[in-house]
């Protein structure tokens, strides 16, 4: 309760009035004397009116508030108003999937985001780590200045190397950054630091650290990786195996090749020449030291224990290693893999190897081989396997595999679905063909075979140079299904986005 006498009187009521309250401010003294306290209700309300007028009319501006430092001058111009308008539509939820493309187009045009859009972009940077680099690229001086004022500079680490406190007490992002920096600057120290904390870290943290190592482990990290192949977390085991397979010269990979070598041999002559798999008779307990599992998992359909062991043994060997081991090029090995008993097991192992530790040349060969088959030999669904292989290939090669699949194994309705389950951007030369292939699926009645959310993602993958042609084709359709309409609107939005940046 306020201690102001007038307010207290109002709260308690004039029935309890003992003495008229004093004027609430010296400037009201003269006017206060004119109040008639023989009618206390009227006097109190008049007092309130006087106080309200005095407070409003007598307000004094606050003094001594320091002016903030102005932001440094901008070196790049802001995005054109039309492009900024499109960003606001994206931020309002109209085409949110186009945000990465808008950010990239803005950076490519050497522009910054408009000032009024900076707070929203900084908010997104706080929530979506993957977009931070692209957002940082278009912040400009004003955006970085605002980030400092909003205490969000931590989202955009400075180029200076992270100090040791980042590794010792920082969050996961900071520790990953420290590890990444020191693996380049001081590999021995990085390997030592990692080994020192490995056992105490959580599974997610261990997986994050192995992601930094990726496909380029140093010799100092090999012992840790070998330990990690026996980790209790599956993701860590897979990452460790992938890193080791990327170093064919390391002892682990050499053991893997030596273990698997006896399993495959070439038998027969001329037309009967074929690749044959010798299943292992028993599970060697020593294999557990390298991360192999004895028990067949529920997901391994159609595989008995021996086939499961063989598949794992094959999966640990980089595909290119077979060329040296069997003294034959990989395409020839693929052709010879036609034994009815063992072909599918060999392919399973090779698919696992190709997707765990991708080697672009052999992965592409394997993908084309599978895509061109007349009959699918594997227990895993064709779309699942092809999708995994396509994901490890560069964009142009991925597009060629999908096209080959359409003419080969995917002769029915699946090409569009395979395309929609992958994420690679279409190369320019493949765009017209893929557009024509997609159109019947978009226009299919009564129910299109693709749903609108997937279609909106598809619209992102066509190259900018093809958008005008695609929209012309669509405008010539007698009518568009809602799915095709959503696709067209996505293309149109992208076209306008790029036009606004290129017109500036």
């Amino acid at each position, binding site marked *: 309760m*306020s201690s102001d006498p007038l*307010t207290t009187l*109002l*709260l*308690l*009521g*004039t*029935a*309890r009035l003992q003495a008229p309250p004093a004027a609430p401010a010296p400037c009201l003294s003269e006017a206060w004397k004119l109040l008639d306290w023989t009618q*206390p*209700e*009227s006097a*109190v*309300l*008049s*007092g*309130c*009116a*006087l*106080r*309200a*007028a005095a*407070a*409003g*009319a*007598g*307000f*004094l*501006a*606050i*003094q*001594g*508030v*320091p*002016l*903030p*430092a*102005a*932001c440094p001058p901008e070196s790049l111009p*802001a995005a054109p*108003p*039309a492009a900024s*308008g499109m960003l606001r539509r994206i931020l309002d939820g*109209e085409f949110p999937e186009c945000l990465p493309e808008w950010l990239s187009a803005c950076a490519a045009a050497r522009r910054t985001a*408009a*000032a*009024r859009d*900076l*707070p929203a972009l900084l908010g997104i940077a706080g929530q979506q780590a993957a977009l931070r680099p692209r957002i940082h690229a278009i912040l400009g001086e*004003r955006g970085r*200045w*605002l980030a400092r*004022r*909003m205490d969000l500079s931590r989202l955009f680490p400075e180029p200076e190397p992270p100090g040791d406190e980042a590794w010792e007490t920082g969050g996961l992002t900071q520790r990953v950054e420290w590890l990444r920096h020191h693996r380049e600057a001081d590999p021995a120290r990085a390997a030592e630091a990692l080994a020192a904390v490995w056992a105490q870290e959580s599974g997610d943290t261990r997986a994050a650290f192995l992601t930094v190592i990726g496909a380029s482990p140093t010799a100092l990290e090999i012992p840790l990786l070998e330990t990690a192949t026996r980790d209790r977390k599956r993701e860590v085991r897979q990452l460790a195996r992938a890193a080791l397979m990327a170093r064919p010269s390391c002892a682990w990979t050499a053991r893997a090749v030596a273990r698997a070598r006896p399993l495959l041999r070439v038998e027969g002559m001329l037309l009967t020449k074929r690749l044959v798999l010798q299943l292992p008779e028993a599970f060697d307990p020593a294999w557990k030291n390298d991360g192999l599992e004895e028990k067949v998992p529920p997901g391994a359909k159609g595989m008995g224990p021996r086939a499961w062991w063989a598949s794992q043994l094959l999966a640990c060997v980089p595909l290119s290693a077979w060329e040296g081991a069997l003294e034959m090029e990989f395409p020839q090995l693929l052709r010879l893999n036609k034994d009815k008993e063992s072909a599918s097991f060999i392919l399973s192992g090779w698919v696992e190897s190709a997707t765990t530790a991708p080697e672009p040349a052999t992965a592409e060969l394997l993908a084309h081989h599978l895509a061109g088959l007349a009959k699918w030999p594997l227990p895993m669904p064709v779309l699942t396997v092809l999708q995994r292989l396509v994901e490890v290939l560069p964009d142009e090669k991925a597009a060629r595999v999908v096209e080959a699949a359409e003419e080969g194994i995917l002769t029915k309705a699946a090409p569009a679905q395979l395309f929609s389950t992958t994420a690679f951007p279409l190369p320019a030369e493949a765009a017209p063909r893929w557009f024509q292939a997609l159109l019947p699926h978009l226009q299919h009645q009564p129910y299109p075979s693709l749903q609108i959310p997937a279609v909106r993602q598809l619209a992102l993958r066509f190259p900018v140079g093809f958008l005008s042609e695609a*929209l012309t084709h669509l*405008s010539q359709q007698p009518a568009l299904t809602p799915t095709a*309409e959503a696709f067209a*609107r996505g293309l*149109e939005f992208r076209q*306008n986005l790029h036009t606004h940046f290129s017109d500036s």
Partner: protein
Amino acid sequence: MASYPTPDIVTALAPDAASLKAGRGLASPGKWLVAAGNAEVLWGLMQGSGKDPYQVQALADGSATKCSCPSRKFPCKHALGLLFIAAEQPGKLASPPVPGWVLEWLAGRAEKAGRAEAKAAAAAAAPGEGGEPAKGPADEKAQAKRREKRSGRVAEGMGFLRQWLADLVRQGLADAPIRDFGYWETAARRMIDAQAPGLARVLRQCGQDAARGVSGQASLLDRLGRLHLLLAAADQPFPDDPSLRAEVDQWLGYTVPQETVLAGAEVTDRWFVAGRTVEEEDRIITVLTWFRGARSGRWACWIQSAPAQQPVFTPMPLGRWLEGSLCFYPGVQPVRAVWKNPPMVVDGGGEILTESVEAMLARYAALQAENPWRVQMPFCISAVAAESAGQACLVEAEGAALPLAASPALTHSMMAVDGGCPAAVCGLWDGGRVLPLAMADHGAWMSLTGKAAP
């Protein structure tokens, strides 16, 4: 090149989100049988479900639209689609000769504008009693009788309210069930019955203050004080001060006929569109658009109201200059005004005049001395958004600061736009804090009141 509205302006014209989305869907020239325009007007033909295509037309600046579709929304999705094409792809508009149905519409508009002007001129030439248009003897007698009857009801209502306030104050606010909305609503409805809607509005505002508990206490006491002052002033005839009498009458809830306002003094100027607020109460949407005269320095507020189902059409683009005449309502330092004729959007009006914080506070003090019921006063200062001890504020280059009623998100938006350098900010000052309306943003103006239209 014609001056078409920007996409932001077209977006603000949309009556609701569904119309905006549908309008965006029609913003492709390929969807139209005809999409054309010139410097004055836009027109198009859109095939609907019927045999004949819909005829869609709009003035080039977006200030009026018409469509033959059966939609009850205004502007409809077809008009919005056509305006979006003009805003974003003006080069794709065809420019054939204007068809007859468009010329007919333009001619009809011109004729209607002429009739309105003639009516206002006739009212100015021969005003009736109390500034109302002249009528026949029978009308005048009936009107006088109605006025007398209403005066009696209002007086009765004020008598009740005085007693009700006295009882409240005697009992004490702590004991009264003031947090109960029904407590204030009962008295407000009594005022409605007494044909004093202004008093009802004040009582409902008191109820909202009371519902906030301790945080609304100061506002409640101030409002009760001003209500008491209004009731006291209502009894005074003020024969020497018709402006004050008119001011008090409007606060009680008496309305002034628009013809009377249009017949009164007008101010011709180049007006800057300084801000826009949207309020909704009892399913009525009210849009207040604020203007500042470049030559006169006067502030004006144009109020438009419409049912929520038929939203208001607000063609005044923020940050633009309009050439025209505003007629002000009678009162003490009035700001409420109406356009004598639809104003023209002009280019190159220069920058809006700003004043210092000290001058603005002095102006507010002078306003309070003459009109204690007008709590909010528009202003424009050059300042920087900042935060001091957790409180958002506007800081002048000279160091004076004013508390700012803004969320952290809004404060950050203002910081981003001003970049630490003073920028023109328009707002409403209520004696304790700034309610921001809009601010200059690199040649454009950014609304600070959220969505500028429902």
